[in-house]
């Protein structure tokens, strides 16, 4: 299953997430032939989009989602700094304000959600 250069150990962690995704869609739309799933993976969700892509075909095999496309958007996180008061978009997985403070509240970007699916 692991291709050269793919970290299988990372992908294994995203397997559970990808299975949750398939589970959620098939429960919501039982029997529908799904041709595309649109997923939002927030920058601070803790989930690696590439690993979900890596698992998707494997996990959908034999389900209503087999052969479906996977479209992932990765919205930036939005944080509020409790020291200087500004709102900012952190540029990595660590929410650090440009002022240097780490005393921040995450306002957006932690979600991992299905936004829509396309059915035939």
């Amino acid at each position, binding site marked *: 299953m692991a291709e050269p250069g793919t970290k299988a150990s*990372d992908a*294994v*962690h995203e*397997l*559970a*997430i990808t*299975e*949750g*995704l*398939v*589970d*959620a*869609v098939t*429960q*919501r*739309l039982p029997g529908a032939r799904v*041709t*595309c799933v649109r*997923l939002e993976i927030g920058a*601070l*969700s*803790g*989930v690696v989009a590439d690993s979900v892509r890596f698992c998707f075909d494997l996990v959908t095999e034999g389900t209503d989602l087999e052969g479906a496309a996977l479209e992932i958007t990765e919205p930036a996180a939005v944080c509020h700094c409790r020291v200087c008061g500004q709102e900012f978009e952190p540029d990595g*997985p*660590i*929410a*650090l304000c440009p002022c240097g403070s*780490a*005393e*921040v509240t*995450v306002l957006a970007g932690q*979600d*991992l*959600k*299905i*936004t*829509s*699916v*396309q*059915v*035939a």
Partner: protein
Amino acid sequence: MCGSCGCGSGAVITLLADRPVPAWLGGHAQPMPDHPHRHVPGHGHHSHGTVRAPDEFLDQDEPHAHHDHDHPRVLQSADSDRTIEIQQKVLAKNDDLAEQNRGWLRERAILAINLMSSPGSGKTTLLERTSRELAGRMAISVIEGDQETALDARRIQAAGSRVVQINTGVGCHLDAEMVARGLRGLDPPSGSIVVIENVGNLVCPALFDLGEEAKVVLASVTEGADKPLKYPHMFRQADLVLLNKTDLLPYVDFNIKQYMADLRMAAPDALLLQISATTGDGIEGWYDWLRRRVPAPHD
């Protein structure tokens, strides 16, 4: 395969408290003399492994009912395909079950702690000491999550706490459903503490709410000081970070000042306590932290 946790072989839950260690540990499932094993079919949409447990608690209600969702809304039709707006968290099912666990725990005034770390950081060692030293002071029971074996549950049992072992097979984390069943098995008394030792791993356990009141991340000085920056998602959610194995500080290259600075960045709101689970150094801070959170028992 289980749809929510990726545990291909299904989670197996075993109650060890108050009774002999079952003989099936080596892979040979054998009924215990007084409490024959009973296989419980998974409820709802898919089978979620096997519970091996005494009959008495299997007859209780399942902790959760299924949640109704709104009907999906059809947005547009393009060609023959229709786009259906869903707007649902991928782990919504787990989140719902976790909320039900939380309600169940609050109703009974039970404090549940989700204890997470890399493998070998010392979670079980900490819980053994905690069980021994708090015996008679606070009632503690433990849900042990491991991929295989009930070795850790036996250690906890030997230290005097009631314990349930959950084996996740290939699954690398506990989920809310496993914990719901573990809680039913333990049936902890009101006013007590349940510590859930999650599967050793700093990735997935951060994603799965179990219904706990607080998340504790255990780190040890032997695994290097870079963990908070490497696993920020895990550390960001921690209410408490326990830095363990401080007895080894003289022998390892671990810059504690740097660690504290990095932890501040990854987890600005977490409290840090330095402990040694083997020598007991600093451990009173952990007990105080627990004591402050234990609710008064209902009568």
